[in-house]
Each structure stands twice: as structure tokens, then as C-alpha cells.
């Protein structure tokens, strides 16, 4: 059963069509990743699911019903920019948000989450004394402390150090494990690839990708040569049959033209330099993202 159903939804701000004729279905119990360049319509879509923004056309159903206002206690929402009362103490703030969301006392849940995310020692400190990563974790707890069935996270991992990133990723996976559905937007393609059951890409308000990572990659076929060339990028220039090269320093990815022969290309490369490793593979999400967004890098204004 789908927890979110978006049907032919359009949202316009002035002259800008932020979301254009969007259809999307989010299955229950899944993690759904929203990707897309800045200003492509991710946040607007999330806000419309929350019913903070109302669509100009189309319908959005959450748990099978059209929402009246954004107040459903079954949905937790973490906005893109953190919104915390700086003068409040961490525990008081979390209790306030939790009670506001669920309409019940959440003292025990708050303390559990604070311990779990290693913030117990900061419970009685004011928000303004926290580091950015800590504040982000507090905001995350505020989103999930009321135990919502659907969790919507707008760029939850931005600006986190690897340690905190792992902590939050594990928390999200754990919530999914307990039956919650999670939608999050991200610019981190590795996170999207590794965590998401489904990936949705929106570009200039239009859906350009939607499905599992495998199904998305299948659309592009095995058109990528991933290799480690001793001569680096300099030894790979002007290769016939190669459409584009992505250089990651010690690793290079070559996107092949549809009609090209990988064997011939490999032979040409080996005539120029030694190869430490090579594989023919499907494109990464990062590469797919660049292929779509790179066609026209002009960014739409943020909604």
C-alpha cells in the first residue's frame, strides 16, 4: 500500500513552475530518496506532501486521505533549514515539539533518543550552545520523537561529519526497520544509492527518474568503463567511442557511446598506459545525475 500518492500535481510561484504535472507513489515501509539540483522542486514537493504548501492542481493523498493542514501526528517532518528556539534547553525543546506533534507527553522517548544519539550530557544546555551537528541531531529527534509512521526529511545529512552521518543513517534505517516509511531529499548520491529502496529525481519541476536503483541503472545499460589508469586522465584523452570521462583522481569512469566497442577502447587505452584495474559497469547515480542535470545546468530558483 502506498503511504503517499501524488497525482498530476502542479505548483507555481509567480512565473516559476516549481513542480509540473508530478505523479509519484511512495510504498509503505520503504525509504524513498528525492534527488535533484538546487531549485528543482524537491522541497516544494515535500512541503506539499506535508500540506504546508497547497498544490495549484492535482491531488496528494497521505495514508489514503487528502490532508487538511499539516498537523497529522502520523507524519514527522524535518525541514531543510533547522528551526530551533535558541534560548530553550534541549530537553524542554524536544518535549515541546514532541507534545505539540503527538498531543501527549513524550518525556521517556525524549530521554531515550538523547541517550541514543549521545546527547544526554547536553539535555539541560541551551540550543545556542550546541554545535551544528548536535543541533541537527536535536532537530532529527524532534522529528521522530512522536513516533510517526511517515518521516519526511529535507536534506537531513547535509553538513554532518562522518561520525554523526553514520549515527543518523543508522537511526533512519532503524526507524524503517520498525515499520516507518521514510522520504528524504539529499545531494549525497552515495547516501541515496546505499540507503534508498526507491529513488526519485526531479529536475526543473519535472520527474526525470523514479524507481529502484537497479531499474534506473538498467535504463542506461552497462555503458560505463571504470578503471584505474597509471597515466591518469592525461592518458585517456581523445579516445574514439568515449562520450565523457569522469575523473576521480585515482579512478576514472568512461561513458561509452551506444555503438562503441569496449574491447577496442580498452585495447587503445592499454597501448597508452598500464591499467591497475578495470570493469565494465552500469553508471553510478552520481553519473546519471550529472548526465541529466548537466544537459542544462541552469538552476531554477529555489521555491
Amino acid at each position, binding site marked *: 500500500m502506498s503511504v503517499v500518492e501524488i497525482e498530476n500535481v502542479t505548483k507555481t510561484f509567480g512565473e516559476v513552475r516549481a513542480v509540473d504535472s508530478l505523479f509519484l507513489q511512495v510504498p509503505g515501509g520503504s525509504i524513498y530518496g528525492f534527488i535533484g539540483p538546487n531549485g528543482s522542486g524537491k522541497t516544494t514537493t515535500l*512541503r506539499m506532501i*506535508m500540506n*504546508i*504548501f497547497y498544490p495549484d492542481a492535482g491531488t496528494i493523498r497521505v495514508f489514503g486521505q487528502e490532508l*487538511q*493542514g*499539516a*498537523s497529522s501526528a502520523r*507524519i*514527522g*517532518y524535518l*525541514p531543510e*533549514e*533547522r*528551526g*530551533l*528556539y*535558541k*534560548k*530553550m534547553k534541549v530537553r524542554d525543546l524536544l518535549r*515541546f*515539539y514532541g*507534545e*505539540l*506533534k503527538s*498531543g501527549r507527553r513524550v518525556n521517556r522517548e525524549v530521554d531515550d533518543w538523547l541517550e541514543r544519539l549521545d546527547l544526554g550530557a547536553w539535555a539541560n544546555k541551551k540550543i545556542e550552545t550546541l554545535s551544528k551537528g548536535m543541533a541537527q541531531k536535536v*532537530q532529527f529527534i*524532534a*522529528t521522530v520523537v512522536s513516533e510517526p509512521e511517515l518521516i519526511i526529511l529535507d536534506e537531513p545529512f547535509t553538513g554532518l561529519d562522518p561520525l554523526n552521518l553514520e549515527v543518523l543513517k543508522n537511526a533512519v534505517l532503524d526507524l524503517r526497520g520498525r515499520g516507518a516509511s521514510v522520504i528524504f531529499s539529499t545531494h549525497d548520491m552515495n547516501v541515496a544509492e546505499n540507503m534508498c529502496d526507491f529513488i526519485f529525481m526531479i529536475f526543473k519541476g519535472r520527474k526525470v527518474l523514479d524507481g529502484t536503483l537497479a531499474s534506473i541503472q538498467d535504463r542506461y545499460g552497462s555503458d560505463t568503463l571504470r578503471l584505474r589508469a597509471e597515466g591518469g586522465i592525461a592518458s585517456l584523452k581523445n579516445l574514439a567511442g568515449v562520450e565523457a570521462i569522469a575523473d576521480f583522481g585515482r579512478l576514472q569512469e568512461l561513458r561509452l557511446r551506444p555503438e562503441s566497442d569496449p574491447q577496442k577502447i580498452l585495447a587503445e587505452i592499454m597501448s597508452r598506459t598500464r591499467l591497475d584495474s578495470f570493469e565494465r559497469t552500469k553508471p553510478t547515480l552520481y553519473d546519471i545525475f550529472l548526465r541529466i542535470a548537466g544537459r542544462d545546468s541552469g538552476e531554477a530558483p529555489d521555491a
Partner: protein
Amino acid sequence: MRKILRLAKREYLESVKTKGFILMLILMPLVMGGSGIAMLLFKDQVDTADKRVAVLDHSRGMMNILERAVEERNRAAVYDPKTGKKVQPAYVLEFIEPDERDPQGQRLALSDRVRRGDLKAFLEIGSAVLHPRGDPSANRIAYHAENAAVDNIRFWLNNTINNDLRKLRLTEAGLDPARADEILAWLQVEPLGLLSADKATGEVREARKSSEAEAVLVPLVLFFLMFMMVMMGSIPLLSSTQEEKTQRIAEVLLGCLKPHEFMAGKVLGGLAVSLTGAMVYVTGGIILLNVAGLAAFVPLHVIPWFFAYLVLEIVMIGTYLAALGSACNDPKDAQNMMFPALIPVFLPIFLAMPTLQEPTSAFATGLSLFPLFTPLLMLLRKASPVGIPAWQPWVGLTGVLLATVFSVWAGGRIFRVAILMQGGPPKLSKILRWAIRG
């Protein structure tokens, strides 16, 4: 409703738990009644140094009179008869022969002496003050000092000279000087209220003496108390809403509450803050007046109206201030918005005295029935000893209720759109469009 109350509770506690709130509760009456309290506290702090005044008497008849009057005044007022302590300055008169050839030169010389501190002032009595007619300059009594307009010596001289001149005139007219005091006796017209009859016994109750405190002070205290409570409860809504929007807290809250619940929680919190302040002052005021034996001045019949109007005023003003705050993107926007937003609260201050002087005039009645002014002006009229028709406060209340409903409706529509809208400073046309279209 539970969520609204939870948000209101936070708003309330965040305000009243601060030292600033307690300080404001203490300081507000001091600021409001500051000048009166200061006058009471410092009334004995007078400069007791002798005050020397030069007198140019062109009439040639005032010297003895003034010398006698000053002597009497100094004997009676300068020293406290119980303690012997000097409590007032002595007046010292220095009679100078007027220079008829160069009067301006003489005045300039005396002015210089005043500037040097040698004299407090100089007095010039015209030649025809006893029988004033004809040349106005001859009838004049001129008092020259550095701050002549507010000078106690001038006030004293004014009374003394005129009393004595009138006595002289009466004596000249052939009347016995002993009767002059009786002829000149001044009787006050006493302000009294109306008589009433006891409903049970039919006994006629004496009219109560009407005092300025009852006629002016009690209505004005209630008026300014409501004004301050409105300021305390509603002004912060504009800035706090703007802050919540700027700091993106609004978006988190909108994930928990519907926009109208969000706004209602904030306004309710502001209302609770005002009611707390009002309860403290009203209860404290009643206790103080009772302790001071002034229980008769407690306008118990007005207090329910005070709270009814206060609640509606804060909801009405608070709602549109929160709506305007939601349209602001930074503190500067909120500052610019503050003054025009508060015009409906400030205007009644300028209308208070004319309303109080003639509470039943068409002017006062009309203005007090205009919903934006009703809470403050109708309260003022209701608290005045002059009775106003019983239907008027009710009609006013109905008007305010309708205006409040409209304010909540329009404010809610503005708030819903504006709270997440980023961009340039708020424009009136845009705000009106949000209110109309939602």
C-alpha cells in the same frame, strides 16, 4: 485545541519566566505614575536659599504693602514651627528708585544682575495699577526672571498684589477695610454627585463628593492599564512571529500545527501574559485602595468590562500583528511595520481627554462605537462618573466581537500564506491580496 494550548503555554512561560517580565511589572506603574510619584517623593526638596527680588514701583504706593506682605509670608512659611528647620526660601525685596530718564538702561542693568545670580528677579509695577485705565503700559506689572513662566515668587506676587490692590480700591471707595475681607471672600463651588434612594427603605442617600480622582484618575488609570496590557500582550507577537519565520522555526511548527492553530496558540499565549499582568495590577490596586481606606474609588462595576474588552482587544490586535509579523522577513521589516500597525492602539490616547470631558457627546459616543477604538474609549466612558446609556457598552462589545472575528479570519489567511513566503519587504497590496484570496 490541545496543541494550541501547548503552544500558548510555551509562549506564556517564555514571557513570564523571564526577569524582564517581573521587572516590567514593577517598573510599569512607576513609569506610568512616575511624575506623580516623583512629585510626592521630592515635594520637600526645595531650594531654601533666600530669593532677592528688585522692585521698581512706579505707582509709589506698593512699597509698604509689599514689605508687610513679605514679612508676614516669611514669618509664616520659611521655618517649620515644630522643628525650626528652614523649609522654604525667604523672599527679600529690594526697592529701587525708578530711573525715569533711562528706563531701558535700568532694566538692562537689573537683567544683568539676575544673570549674575545677584537677584532672582525684578518686578516693575506700573504707575496706574491702582486705577487701571488708559495707557496699558502704566497698568502693567512686569516680572522679569530667567524662567518667569514657572516661578513660585511670581505666583505669590500675583495673588498678594491683586488682593491688596482690591482692598485699597475698596477703602478708597469708602468701605470699611474690616469688611474688605468679607467682600473679597472666595467660595468654592463644590463638585458633588447625584443623590439616590435606597431601594429597600426609600431613604435618600447623600450625594457623594465628586473628586478629580474619581472623575479623571480612575478612568485614566483603567484606560492606561488596558493600553499597557495590550502593548505587553500583542506587540511581542509581531517580532516573535517574524523571528520564528526568519529562524525557520515556523516551518517546524507548521509540521505540527495547522497555520490557524499556530497563530491561535501565539495569540492565546500573548493574551495569557496580558491577563496575568492585568490580574496583578487590578488585584493589587483593589487591595491597596482598601488598605488606604479608599475602597469607594474601586470601580467594581467597570472591572468585568475591562477584562471583556481587554480579551477582545488583544485577540483583535494580536491577530493582525501576528499576521503582519508573518509577512516580515527580518527585524527591520518588523520595526517598520510596528508604528502603522499600532496606530489603532495609539490614537485613542489622543482622544482620551476630550472623551473624558464630555463622555456623552456625539463625538465621544461615535468614536467609542468604532470597533478599533471601542475597548479603550468605551472603557473610559464607562469608568467616568457620568452615566452612559446602558446599551452602548453592549453594542460596542458586539462591534468589537465582529471586528475580532474578521481580524482572526483575515489574519489567518495572511498568516497561512506569508509565514513561509521569503523575498522582499512586505507590501500592503500583497498583504491585502493574501487576505482576500487566501
